[in-house]
């Protein structure tokens, strides 16, 4: 499965970019993972995955950093806490927002050719 540049996903899904706008063109997404359980994501996501979740607290940044995920899409119109964004900026984790549900977001990512890596 080929990789997709994060910028293409942002444009295609109309995501609101909250952090790391400068690295969208250079960030490669190799797969996707969707879950709202921290232990599930830490155990089962893969490096380079784009993570879709409705969790918006700052521990999502710790997970994304530890697992070297390519970014986080917070779905369902949930707004991240300001600490989440500060932490994500420090750690270079792209945080993207969508008003779509997780189901819709994942469906569109799949349609773009993204798979579980």
């Amino acid at each position, binding site marked *: 499965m080929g990789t997709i540049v994060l910028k293409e996903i942002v444009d295609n899904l109309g995501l609101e970019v909250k952090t790391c706008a400068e690295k969208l063109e250079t960030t490669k997404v190799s797969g996707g993972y969707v*879950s*709202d*359980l*921290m*232990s*599930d994501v*830490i*155990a089962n996501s893969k490096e380079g995955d784009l993570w879709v*979740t409705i*969790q918006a*607290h*700052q*521990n999502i*940044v*710790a*997970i994304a*950093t*530890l*697992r070297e995920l390519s970014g986080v899409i917070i779905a369902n119109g949930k707004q991240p806490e300001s*600490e989440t964004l500060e932490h994500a900026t420090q750690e270079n984790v792209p945080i993207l927002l969508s008003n779509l549900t997780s189901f819709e977001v994942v469906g569109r990512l799949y349609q773009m050719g993204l798979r579980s890596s």
Partner: protein
Amino acid sequence: MNDEVLYRKRFDIQGRDFSNAGNVSSQVKAVLKEIGIEAYVIRRTAIAAYEGEMNIVMYADKGELEFLIDREKIQLIFTDQGPGIEDINLAMQPGYSTAPPEMQEMGFGAGMGLPNIIKNADKFEIQSEVGKGTTLHVIIYHSKHPE
């Protein structure tokens, strides 16, 4: 010779401090990367470190991690001053959790913490005393997993 400690570091972990939760695991991971441990071993250690750290953050007043590396293995020793675990066998069952609803809403306390640690450890020991605290000892061999 293999037991000679090449690297040792002690980290404090503050209970209920969700804003810094994950920092200790990130530092552990950074050390392993820097000394060139295999990616597969780093992944397993990072998962165990994260879950051990989160257990202290979620349940204990405070705790610490002692992180040791020798020629053949990585050791993570978590010690906390926490409530202790009443029934260790139950706590090790996937899906069992005593986390309060507000933590579960944040996606913690899914009952996967100890199972994740056990799955990624080569050796695992747990000791706990109700009202006193819990110690977790995780060993992951690094020389046996070339990748």
